[in-house]
């Protein structure tokens, strides 16, 4: 865990150093994200789609087709289950309204490939992306008003695809971006054996300088 953070800080510093020499290639993306749980996360913990999410990325374009960025965001999942009787260990039985919460804050390095390149004049430009890093997880479970949260930071990876729709003048390369991501997080806890989600995002990308 500590090692992961150290690697990230090093990469971050490298990126910022690089960006200082060519800031016009530095871009920022901000957007809104909807997340839908999959698999065990959906079946064993929260099945509801989360509409509380957002993301941001600062990226550096190494060439017109490829950029690498520091990607972060958050998604807050929540579900309240109606009162139900649960068996605990031994002969213990509890009747409770269970509330499950999961906050996921990814901190990842993300590479984006745009086959048409940055100078393209096409109205719609596709891209694909891949990311890896950690996700800061805040797991919460409450039986009635009793319970709490527990934080961890497991490995996380993401694959994504979408389109850019440029607007404004071409030099600035400002664009709307819509896309979808598949998110994998290596997480096991109680009944949960993964934290995989699908995300749908809409945002704006613009040059920082």
């Amino acid at each position, binding site marked *: 865990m500590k090692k992961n953070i150290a690697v990230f800080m090093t990469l971050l510093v490298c990126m910022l150093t690089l960006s200082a020499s060519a800031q016009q290639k530095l871009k920022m993306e901000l957007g809104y994200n909807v997340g839908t749980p999959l698999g065990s996360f959906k079946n064993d913990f929260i099945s509801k789609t989360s509409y509380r999410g957002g993301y941001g990325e600062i990226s550096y374009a190494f060439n017109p087709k490829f950029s690498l960025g520091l990607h972060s965001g958050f998604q807050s999942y929540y579900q309240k289950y109606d009162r139900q009787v649960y068996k605990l260990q031994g002969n213990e039985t509890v009747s409770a309204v269970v509330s499950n919460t999961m906050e996921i804050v990814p901190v990842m390095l993300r590479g984006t490939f745009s086959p048409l390149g940055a100078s393209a004049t096409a109205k719609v430009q596709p891209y694909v992306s891949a990311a890896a890093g950690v996700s800061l997880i805040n797991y919460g479970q409450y039986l009635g008003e*009793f*319970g709490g949260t527990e934080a961890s930071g497991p490995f996380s990876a993401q694959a994504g695809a979408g389109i850019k729709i440029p607007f404004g003048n071409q030099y600035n390369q400002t664009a709307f971006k819509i896309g979808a991501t598949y998110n994998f997080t290596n997480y096991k806890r109680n009944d949960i054996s993964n934290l995989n989600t699908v995300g749908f995002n809409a945002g704006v990308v613009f040059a920082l300088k």
Partner: protein
Amino acid sequence: MKSKNVLWLTILALGAMFSGCTKDPVANLTAEESRIYITDHDSTVNFSTFKTFSISDSVAVINDGRASKEITATDRAFIDAVKSEMQAKGFTLVNKSANPDLGINVSRIYNTSTGIVSYRNYYDMYGGYYDPYYWGYGGYGYYSPYSYATYSIREGALSIDMLNLKNAAASNRINVIWTGLIRGSGIFNSSTAADQVKMLFNQSAYLKNQ
């Protein structure tokens, strides 16, 4: 150096924004939803071998380990609710002097927990929340000697214990063969006492004489 500060401020601001966007699961509960009903029992016991029961005429109030006996209107409501649930399950209420098979005790348990909240994080940014200019002293800093506060939380729970009096003489002790515990908000309320007791009995299907 300055850009580093900006970076940290941005991370802090994002953190604050994110935490503001999350839902507080406890705040989203009604008093009824906040309560949990826990039961446990001795699985070697066959409850249908018991016929009669008696219930204590007052409630033990256990306050941070010190006990006293009380009988308020709410206590009465809980005792009456237990009586009618037991009768509905086929047990016969008898007087304590009539050698009941089962004895029932109802207790109110209060626990006080204390903690400390630190003001440090709050005062460090105080000038950001309240610009000293507002008070006519632009550019001044605030000084506060207070760094922490203690608090205490008192939590109440209600417990119902069922005692095996029938076999007490044989085993030389009084075994608790069933226990029910209610925790959460608004427990001590005579208008919901019957519903609360019903929850405990409903989840204990084995508890019957039929």
